[in-house]
């Protein structure tokens, strides 16, 4: 669980943009070391408003992905960060009301296609802002680079 306005410098500090993973992991979220130390593969981050504000650095969602985070559900997202997530096929969805509907360690499920978010622990259901078909397609294809590679392969055929 995170609050509002968590910026990209916390997810990817500038000094680590060219560093190896161990160094990056040590520097991420200086105020939330508890999170970095305890995160498990498949975990979902639940956050407040304006998650990912700041830089265009794609390292921010990449680093979260590398930590094993499977998705981020936030009240709202900063737009460049959000676009980066689609481009690298990392499911992030804006889900108004999510911070009130989930407690830390609840079991939560996200269906990107329908936008349905289920809190299995508390048997509650919310609706995230749905992805467009284009966004779903990019994620399903594994990101924009995969799409481009497929386009090139098709044109060479």
């Amino acid at each position, binding site marked *: 669980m995170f609050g509002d*306005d968590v910026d990209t410098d916390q997810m990817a500090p500038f000094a680590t943009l060219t560093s190896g993973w161990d160094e990056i992991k040590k520097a991420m979220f200086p*105020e939330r070391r508890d999170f970095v130390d305890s995160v498990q593969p498949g975990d979902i981050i639940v956050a407040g408003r304006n998650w990912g*504000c700041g830089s*265009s650095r794609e390292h921010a969602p990449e680093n979260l992905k590398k930590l094993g985070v499977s998705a981020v559900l936030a009240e709202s997202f900063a737009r*460049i960060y959000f676009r980066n997530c689609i481009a690298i096929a990392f499911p992030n969805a804006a889900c108004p009301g999510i911070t009130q509907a989930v407690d830390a360690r609840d079991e939560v499920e996200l269906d990107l296609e329908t936008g349905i978010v289920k809190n299995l622990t508390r048997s509650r259901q919310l609706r995230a802002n749905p992805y467009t078909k284009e966004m779903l397609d990019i994620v399903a294809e594994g990101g924009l680079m995969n799409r481009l590679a497929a386009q090139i392969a098709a044109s060479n055929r």
Partner: protein
Amino acid sequence: MAQKVLARAAGRNSTQAGEYVTAKVDRIMAHEAFSLCVMKLMKIGVNQVFDPEKVIVILDHYFPAPTQEMAAGHLMARSLAKSLGIKHFLGHAGICHQVLTERGLVRPGHLVFGTDSHSTTYGAIGAAGTGLGLTEISYAMATGELWLQVPPTIRFVLEGQARAGLMSKDVILHIAGKHGTEAAQYRSIEFAGDAAERMTIASRMTMSNMGVEIGAKFAFFAADSTTCDYLFERTGENVEPFGPDTDPEYEETHIVDVAELEPQVARPHSPGNVAKVSDLRDVPVAQAFIGSCTNARLEDFEVAAKVLAGRRVHAETRLIVTPASQDVHLEATKAGFVQTLLEAGAHVTASGCGACPGGHNGVVGPGEACISSTNRNFRGRMGSTEAEIYLASPATVAASAITGKITDPRDFWDGTTL
């Protein structure tokens, strides 16, 4: 203006807010991220860019190279740019947004993608500039196009004659403080009103630059006679004005009474955590920094020089000044501003992003406070996560450098750039 640019870029007569289009890009700006983009493309067998005249490369974030690794990175970027036939490889002429604007490489009505979030700066000359990450820029570099949602537009009408001590930075900080860091999330901004019309291009660039700090996708000023004169002076070419249609649709309109404003400061750790400078007394600063794509232009040098002329930087404070471009550095030197700053005890560095993102040339240490003319004061932004960064106009930064604590610029300066 966003709808007009995106309609043209998508080959349509018109567009509606909320719809998705595939838009053709007019310019792609890539800084050090260029090499990473090219490598991504090469990995999947793409060995050319869609148009070598439209992809512009410049090295600013790590110039002059602080490490051997970065020096090698610059060399690689240079060689990749050459092999791809990049027409505008601008080397280390300064900070990307400043150099592209002052050289007329971006024009009113253009759609511009940059590998930098502050690409909204191009809105100052009426261009739709926006920042994107590596993957999206790589895709656009290969194909020349990308999906975009047509954003709704909100308008800030800036009215009235500013009082002493005010710069455009104070206006945008006021907006961020009053309306919050999400005021323009997923939206395009248009700045209008008599105070906007009177602003120089330099002042407009500060406002458009920080549009992204309140979430904006684009942050436009209409390209008017000020814009056309600016571009003519620099390129010798006549440029057509570009502005909103006669009856544009705005999702919201906010009136900003500039005449009522006092100098503003954003406190740690958000650009939206804004107070009047007069409410902040006795905040000692170890570093004062005038630099970045936000506020390090000739106009900013002039104001800093006026504040510091005949005075001394406080013994326990360092004032670091990093010009936005080599051209700015030269002009500020010719005008005598650099000498005035040096005589006051400032350190003037080579142009580049420098201390702003915490790269080099003024990284702040634990327990230090820095007052800075830059755009972001996130925790750790300029170095230590235990440092505190305050954002303000160059006038306020210069005044604070004299006293060693956050200081109202009106103590030393009775002018305004607005």
